[in-house]
């Protein structure tokens, strides 16, 4: 009696344990992606963003499902870093969503690992190309194959804070000019601010951003990376570039130590500088961080290294791509087309994803304020716009961050320019050869 009882207990324990083990090892049935709400096809769609963008996508997807009653779309979203952590895991296990909002810096990595669908068979059919310029269509191309369509574009620009400039009585930087002109402007603001006893500087050390190096290289006919992914510059060029900051790092530009304290926002966000060079879609973020006291910003062209240079270019703020292992490529292409081209999506988003690249989508947008300013800016620099560089090399994000960190080390004085150049090239070597 005693023994039998114990046997039964042991069996029960074993049964529970096995069930637990199965649950732990993830043997639960995967969600079947068909037959929901009567739709013949169900697509998974993922994006990064916040609640505001999610509400916009809800509106856009509802319009899509109305037009295509046979297609149901499951939407999911996360913040940017989590979005990519999740995608990396899905990518290694072959379970990417059908349609994705996609970042330019990952395009080469994903396409070269055959994770994205070749869109060529769908171009001009499901995916309408009439409203997209060749320049835009070229952005999603890696190794002669189209993997993504850009939704919108940004260009490099210089933001200024008119209210702070007025406070210290300095004229706004007119845009263009030489890099020395810009340094002079930074100095004027800083001196005026010191005279007025205000904690304010004219700008930060612009040599901390790889994009400023890039536009200087482009002006000389070089590039950050060649088409085969090799560095397009040598140590001497980088040394010269970083040395440009030597004089403004001596208290002319905002000290790095002060920037460390406000990081991750920038000096411009924290109302500590009157100017900053960055992508032109950062305006809304700046106004958000500056707070209600600030309502307008200036946006002018960056300094130019050589008059007449085609140093600037349009960069996609984001793309849409389709997973290579989707079971419904045609329907996915329909969804991608709708997200890129339809005026309904334009109306839902405004410029939340940047200035729409598709003219039909742009027609759906009601422009005003900053959005209009950005459109006018991108028109004003058309003479300086050259071809976009090839899609970023695998590991570009790391390189960009490394460049930024070395810039902060220079600002803090813990490295010399020579040491920084050596470290950068050693890091580059690891990334390019891994």
């Amino acid at each position, binding site marked *: 009696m005693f*023994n039998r009882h114990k046997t039964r207990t042991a069996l029960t*324990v*074993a049964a529970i344990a096995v069930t637990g083990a199965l649950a732990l090892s993830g043997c639960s049935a995967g969600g079947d992606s068909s037959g929901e709400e009567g739709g013949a096809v169900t697509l998974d769609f993922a994006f990064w963003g916040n609640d505001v963008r999610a509400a916009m996508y809800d509106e856009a997807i509802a319009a899509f499902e109305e037009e295509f009653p046979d297609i149901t779309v499951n939407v999911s979203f996360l913040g940017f870093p989590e979005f990519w952590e999740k995608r*990396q895991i899905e990518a290694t296990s072959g379970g990417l969503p059908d349609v994705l909002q996609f970042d330019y810096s990952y395009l080469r990595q994903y396409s070269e690992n055959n994770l994205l669908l070749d869109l060529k068979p769908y171009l001009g059919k499901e995916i309408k190309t009439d409203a997209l310029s060749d320049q835009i269509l070229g952005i999603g191309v890696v190794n002669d194959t189209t993997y993504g369509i850009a939704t919108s574009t940004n260009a490099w620009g210089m933001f200024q804070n008119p209210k702070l400039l007025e406070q210290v009585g300095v004229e706004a930087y007119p845009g263009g000019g030489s890099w020395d002109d810009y340094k002079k402007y930074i100095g004027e603001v800083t001196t005026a601010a010191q005279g007025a006893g205000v904690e304010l500087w004219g700008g930060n050390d612009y040599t901390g951003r790889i994009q400023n190096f890039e536009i200087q290289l482009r002006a000389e006919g070089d590039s950050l990376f060649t088409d085969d992914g090799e560095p397009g510059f040598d140590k001497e060029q980088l040394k010269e570039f970083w040395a440009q900051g030597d004089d403004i790092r001596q208290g002319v530009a905002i000290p790095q130590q002060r920037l460390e304290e406000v990081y991750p926002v920038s000096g411009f966000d924290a109302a500590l500088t009157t100017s900053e060079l960055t992508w032109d879609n950062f305006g809304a973020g700046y106004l958000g961080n500056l707070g209600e006291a600030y309502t307008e910003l200036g946006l002018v062209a960056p300094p130019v290294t050589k008059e007449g240079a085609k140093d600037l270019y349009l960069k996609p703020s984001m793309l849409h791509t389709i997973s290579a292992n989707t079971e419904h490529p045609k329907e996915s292409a329909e969804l991608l087309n709708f997200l890129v081209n339809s005026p309904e999506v334009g109306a839902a988003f405004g410029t939340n994803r940047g200035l729409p690249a598709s003219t039909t989508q742009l027609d759906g947008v009601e422009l005003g304020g900053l959005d209009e300013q950005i459109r006018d800016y991108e028109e004003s620099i058309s003479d300086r716009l050259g071809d976009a560089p090839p899609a970023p090399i695998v590991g570009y994000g790391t390189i960009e961050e490394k460049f930024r960190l070395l810039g902060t080390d220079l600002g803090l004085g813990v490295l010399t320019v020579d040491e920084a150049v050596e470290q950068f090239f050693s890091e580059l070597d*690891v990334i390019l050869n891994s």
Partner: protein
Amino acid sequence: MTNTPVSSKPAPVTVPSARPAPVRRAGGRAAPSQKQRSTRRENLAGYGFLLPWLVGFFGLTVGPMLISLYLAFTSYNLFTDPEWIGFDNFTRMFTDDPIYMKSVGITLIYVLVGTPIKLAAALGIAMLLNYRDAGSGFFRSSFYAPSLIGASVSVAIVWRAMFAANGPVDGGLSFLGIQIGGWVGNVDLVVPMMIILAVWQFGAPMVIFLAGLKQVPQELYEAAEMDGAGPFRRFRNVTLPMLSPVIFFNLLLETINAFQIFSSAFIISNGSGGPGGMTNFYTVYLYKRAFADLQMGYASAMAWVLVIVVAIAALVLFRTSKRWVHYGGDS
């Protein structure tokens, strides 16, 4: 209740001869008796209960550890298959990565400076609190409180705000005429700031010291006092030796913990390891190599070097402990 062979079902006489001769253990009996069977069932039940833990242990701890040991000798970016590169990761670490060496340097400073100060603070406060009256419980809890919340994200955020330019610390020091500005962005002050944060979380070793202090027999102090020993001598010749096993335990634990400093540094620097790499402690750098740069092979190699270094540190402590740790009554 005992299970003798005759209790319920006597085994049929024919069975043993129908089978091949039972294997005999050295000096063993004929297998399997009912007693053995019930032992086996008990074992089975035992393993059944252990199974969930075993699955976790092998699936989530041992398995990943072995895989990471393999990855340490590969170049692996999550996308393409790991590529065997032998000892390249380790060579790079020690000969071609100045950031790694710097990270090791500041981690060692943090461990070697921070841990002794923290233990001294913990012991000092434990001695102050080692009395018994109405308020003692309240004070003990109050002093322990920072350690309960110390590891949390919120405290690191508060710490960052406190030590920023024009923050309370800067303001207080300025009031005293010391103008050093903010600590958070200052290359020279951010490590001391991290050490102060660690020392402030002295609660866990303090509680253990308190328990240890209570074990020191009062008659030893009385005897020492009668021999004319002052407070310092009593501390040196009675408290310290009697407390040495507890000191050893705390030292070991805190050293191992200090090597693994991550969350406070990660939050205070917003994940950047700045300013100037001065909060880029070992695990912060490891995390960045793995999850920001996707250099999983390199990060695995770093992790194994850390395991080995911590093991060596523990071994050294154990070895030297024979000389200074006294277990009461042993000698």
